[in-house]
């Protein structure tokens, strides 16, 4: 197979996404009062409604409909006042009624969009034909249309027993746990506007940031509370007609989404260039072998026999209902990024990273509470470097760690005022994370205060110059780089407490 860059010269990928998100932050299921808790013992949170018992009827969860309206408002959708639930009829026992209650041609949210800023290496995945809209920090802006977001219910979990690795193929029998059945689920469908795996990844990432900020889901790709399918086809560069698409499933990370799509682009290009046919089929991304495999071939489109759900009255959402939801709309990641960049003066890319995670953003703002905005850069640095590294290594999150915003602010302050060096900063962070002590206490305990008193530093410089006649000679001979070595000797002599910037200045003066 050709490399992606090669393929892009001749072919234009056309990608659309279907993203399912469980509304995990609600208390109850979509159509019954069972609790939302998938991890309980099998079939604990089940009732006549979600078990599809004869005679049971659905009663929609108001908070779920508020959540989807919130999602629609946050993604620039039009909120449709009039809409109906529909039944999607197909036989599969993970859907207890053998139909899924979903929405018809008109969903609660229609016709939205999101803009993506694609920068750096990511931008190289898109062929530049000169029509791209430039981004504020290089790269370009991709405008992605959202067709609709509709409300539906999730299916039960099945366990396939007796096959290899729990696969359905070759399984001896299967077991069904209906705890998840009926979980409120919103499905967002994009227009086929995405043109690269990176754009797809960025879109999902952005969507996740938005939904997390709205607080409507825990958005875990790993546990499956956020799931994504990609539809992808290729067309000859310069042509308009869509090629045959394949549907990519089983994506459980942003990397899988990117890598699966990239593989499909390269695979389809190879098939097409060899004069073959791309079949409309569902393919499954296998992480271990890094390839896509056919799940099933769709000979004809499935006929789900949709019709309006007779058990549920139609919706005619009032202006008050929509405005009530709008009033709960929090500051969204893009707006927050701009605010951080403007009012705190931190780098736009740093601001975007902090603003993208509501817990981190909250932490940042708590750390900055009552502080001079000059401290912001240092706080941002500690969060994005020390803290992010620590959480990554420990497998923790901002929500589950014990480090407080005040501790981070205090460490940032020590760094910003040159009281400690950056390498000391890392040590203090580590100690703070392990012991829970405040940075100032750690610094005192370990005698780490950076010494910036010139009268204390001068003798150190004098003794180092004396001890290193060779390097002094080299410096005077024009090799000014050797000053780095001398600063290092000064630091060593001061047991790491001396201010390296001041050592440098003093050395330059004396040698100059």
């Amino acid at each position, binding site marked *: 197979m050709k490399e992606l860059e090669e393929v892009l010269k001749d072919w234009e990928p056309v990608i659309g996404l279907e993203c399912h998100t469980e509304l995990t932050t609600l208390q109850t299921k979509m159509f019954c009062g069972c609790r939302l808790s998938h991890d309980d013992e099998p079939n604990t949170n089940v009732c006549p409604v979600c078990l599809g018992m*004869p005679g049971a009827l659905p009663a929609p969860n108001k908070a779920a409909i508020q959540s989807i309206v919130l999602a629609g408002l946050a993604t620039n959708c039009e909120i449709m006042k009039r809409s109906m639930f529909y039944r999607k009829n197909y036989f599969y026992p993970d859907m207890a009624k053998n139909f899924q209650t979903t929405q018809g041609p008109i969903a609660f949210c229609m016709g939205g969009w999101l803009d993506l800023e694609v920068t750096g290496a990511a931008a190289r995945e898109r062929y530049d034909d000169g029509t791209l809209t430039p981004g504020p920090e290089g790269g370009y802006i991709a405008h992605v249309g959202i067709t609709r977001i509709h409300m539906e219910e999730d299916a039960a979990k099945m366990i396939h027993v007796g096959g290899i690795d729990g696969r359905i193929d070759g399984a001896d029998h299967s077991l069904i746990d209906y705890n998840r059945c009926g979980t409120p689920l919103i499905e967002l469908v994009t227009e086929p506007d995405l043109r690269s795996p990176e754009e797809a990844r960025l879109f999902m990432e952005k969507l996740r940031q938005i939904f997390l900020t709205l607080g409507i889901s825990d958005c875990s790709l790993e546990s499956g509370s956020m799931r994504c399918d990609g539809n992808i086809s290729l067309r000859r560069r310069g042509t308009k007609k869509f090629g045959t698409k394949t549907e990519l499933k089983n994506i459980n990370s942003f990397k899988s989404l990117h890598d699966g799509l990239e593989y499909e682009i390269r695979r389809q290009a190879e098939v097409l260039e060899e004069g073959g046919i791309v079949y409309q089929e569902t393919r499954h991304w296998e992480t271990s072998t890094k390839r896509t495999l056919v799940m099933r071939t769709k000979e004809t489109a499935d006929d789900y026999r949709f019709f309006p759900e007779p058990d549920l*009255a139609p919706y005619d959402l009032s202006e008050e209902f929509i405005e009530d939801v709008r009033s709960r709309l929090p500051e969204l990641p893009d707006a927050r990024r701009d605010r951080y960049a403007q009012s705190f003066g931190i780098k736009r890319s740093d601001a975007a990273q902090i603003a993208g995670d509501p817990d981190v953003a909250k932490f940042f703002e708590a750390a900055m509470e009552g502080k001079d905005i000059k401290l912001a850069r240092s706080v941002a640095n500690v969060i994005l470097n020390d803290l992010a590294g620590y959480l990554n290594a420990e497998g923790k999150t901002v929500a589950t760690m014990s480090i407080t915003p005040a501790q981070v602010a205090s460490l940032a302050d020590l760094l910003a005022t040159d009281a400690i060096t950056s390498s000391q900063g890392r040590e203090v962070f580590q100690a703070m994370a392990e012991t829970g002590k405040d940075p100032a206490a750690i610094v005192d305990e370990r005698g780490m205060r950076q010494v910036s008193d010139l009268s204390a530093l001068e003798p150190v410089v004098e003794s180092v110059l004396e001890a290193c006649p060779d390097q002094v000679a080299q410096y005077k001979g024009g090799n000014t780089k050797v000053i780095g070595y001398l600063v290092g000797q000064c630091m060593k002599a001061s047991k790491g407490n001396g201010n390296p910037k001041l050592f440098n200045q003093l050395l330059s003066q004396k040698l100059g």
Partner: protein
Amino acid sequence: MSAYIEDLDAALIAKAVKEGSISALEVAQASLDAIDKRDPQIHAFIQVTPELALKAAQDIDNARAQGKELPPLAGVPIAFKDNMHLIGSRTTCASHMLENYESVFTATAVQRMLDAGCVPVGKLNMDEFAFGSSTESSYFGHTCNPYDIERVPGGSSGGSAAAVASGMVPLTLGSDTGGSIRQPASFCGVVGFKPTYGMVSRYGIVAFGSSLDQVGPFGRSVHDVALAMNALAGRDERDCTSQPWNIDFTADLNSGVEGMKIGIVSSLNNAEGVEAEVVDAINKAAQNLTAAGAELVEVELPHAAAAIAAYYVLAPCEAFSNLARFDGVRYGHRPNDARDLADMTSRARAEGFGPEVKRRIMLGAHLLASGVYDKYYYPAQQVRALITEDYKKAYEQVDAILMPTSPHTAFKFGELSNPTQMYLSDMFTISLNIAGNAGISVPVGFGSASGLPIGAQLIGPAFQDHKLLRIAASLEASYEATQCAPGFTKKGGLLS
């Protein structure tokens, strides 16, 4: 001692129990005895629930002994169509599919009758999953018409009508999707009421056509039916199509029809296929209403002819989807030697469902297919709009419309063997379900030729059910009080 309840209606029983002239336990036992004696002949019951009945009756007697105020229908034996869930009973829908299905909850309508003091004596026969007009399609065998055991009791709530007509219980509940309460009431000479859609909760009633189904009572008098409606009506948060309603249906019941306008649709009443004795009986009923002070007004229902077609599109589509859940996984019949899941489900359904159920499912599955949907389903919902509008216009001129319940009296078993021929006999009852309005069948004597009961149907606008009952009570008053079928009466009952 054994009590006779044949001549007692619900109102009298409740009164006697409240006064203490009879105990709830005696009444319950009398009902169970009557079932023991008569049901082998009639076969109205699929299951009798003596434990539930005696326990409920004992509770009422205890409450009375403790001086507590008794609910309005305390001690009245009741039985439920077997598509209604009642904890402690099986709910079979008269199907092999659900032969052993134990109710896991109690239907709201059932619970409301129990809360009103009714004593549950059993579950009643019906057409399988309520698909039919004769109760012949029950997996457990047909129910006989108490007026002539060679004849059908009507359907699908045939057991509900026959149980009342044969004096085994004074009150039953049925469900009506296209006439399934009114037509058997007509065939068995009792009162059967289909309330406005949304008046009574459907929660816990095994669904047939969700936008058409409505639960309603059978009794031997309009007054009993009104008492039952007092218990049944009102919003249930579990049924999102139910609506708030709080009115005493008995309050104006005897206020008469003076000055009211009753609509007559001549083209319908004299349509092809309506038997002469039925036409005569309806004309007589019209005269009686005039005599009571009502004015007859000719009205038009221009789209009535489309109702049967629309119904047989909508009902099978909804039924197909509602019955998809019977896949043998969570409940219901399941073959134990299936090759795979699809084989298991296909055979569970092939073995578990009777022929008419399969036919309706297949018809619905076809009608909803893409390409077919636009030809039938969508137009049927448009026709629904037209029919609803027709009724609205008619009700601007009249308070209710009078017409036959059925074009003929009870037919013999096997007489209507072609399913589509059976469908066409629902001509008077079906359009009401499409519009969601209320209708009641009131006994108006016996056919001059057949000697069998004839029911007159009164239909009224949505949520004017109390007014419709008032008109029905007035019509009823122009006839002799409704008795049990001959052979099932026992003059000189307990209170005499």
